[in-house]
């Protein structure tokens, strides 16, 4: 493990710039009817941009990239448990109509 890592302001401002561009993109994409190409494409694009933005915040603003492995494990675990909740619950509700 290296010495305490200080992230430079230059990186913070670059990340901020990318986040602003992504915010603009997500609003612009919502104004276009993407669903006519593929049902649900609008929400897929919106969530992909949101996940990308959130990852940048975790990796750089929250220093996830420079954290020790066990801290990174906690980060991944929290996303994993959330995915378990969403996936298991939805797979129940969606399949209730089947029979």
């Amino acid at each position: 493990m290296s010495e305490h890592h200080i992230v430079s302001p230059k990186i913070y401002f670059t990340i901020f710039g990318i986040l602003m561009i992504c915010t603009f993109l997500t609003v612009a994409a919502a104004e276009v009817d993407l669903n006519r190409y593929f049902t649900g494409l609008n929400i897929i694009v919106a969530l992909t941009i949101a996940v990308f933005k959130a990852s940048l915040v975790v990796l750089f603003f929250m220093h996830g990239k420079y954290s020790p492995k066990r801290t990174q494990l906690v980060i991944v675990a929290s996303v994993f448990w959330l995915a378990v909740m969403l996936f298991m619950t939805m797979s129940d509700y969606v399949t209730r109509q089947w029979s």
Partner: protein
Amino acid sequence: MHRTGELYEQYRTMEQQRETASLGMWIFLSTEVLFFGGLFMTYTLNRSTYPGIFSEASKTIKLSWGAINTVVLIASSLTMAMAVWASQAGRKKALTWFLIATLVLGTVFLGIKSIEYHDKYVEHHIPGWSFQFEPGADAATNAHTQLFFSLYFGMTGLHALHMIVGAGLLIWLTKESLKGRFTPEYNTPVENIGLYWHFVDIVWIFLFPLLYLIDRH
């Protein structure tokens, strides 16, 4: 006990002490993910059940306020990140100013949120006995749009509550930073409250497209 950055006996190095504090904060944040997760779960289920009505209800929320608030909140994350940098670099004056900037941006966010809530109040879009989606709306439309607005107020309300707590923490941080308490050796409160603030930003990054941007076209 007033902590100043000495090494406690249970740790071998300062690095280990710092990482332990950060790990604890991350474990707390993972419980927060699941706290908000329940609401996101409810949202996912109801939106998949009533996709059309959720889209209609979402279109009555002003996109411009939501977009401005997204910019404001991400800017506050930048100033918070810069506050952490200032504390690590030992720039005490800059630290205080970045903390104040974060607090101001957080307050602007809450101010805009209250304007939005007031708009919804005027439009009878607050779930309850006086709720009416639009004049002459039938019972089913009123019932299902109320689901959307219950989630809207529940999710943005819990988020706003976190912002208010964060603002309180920032006031305390500013006060302590004015005493010159944070140094490159000891800045754990700045770092951990920073993590909390960024987490609240991430929640908003998801709330914005899910509540404001449903099939806007």
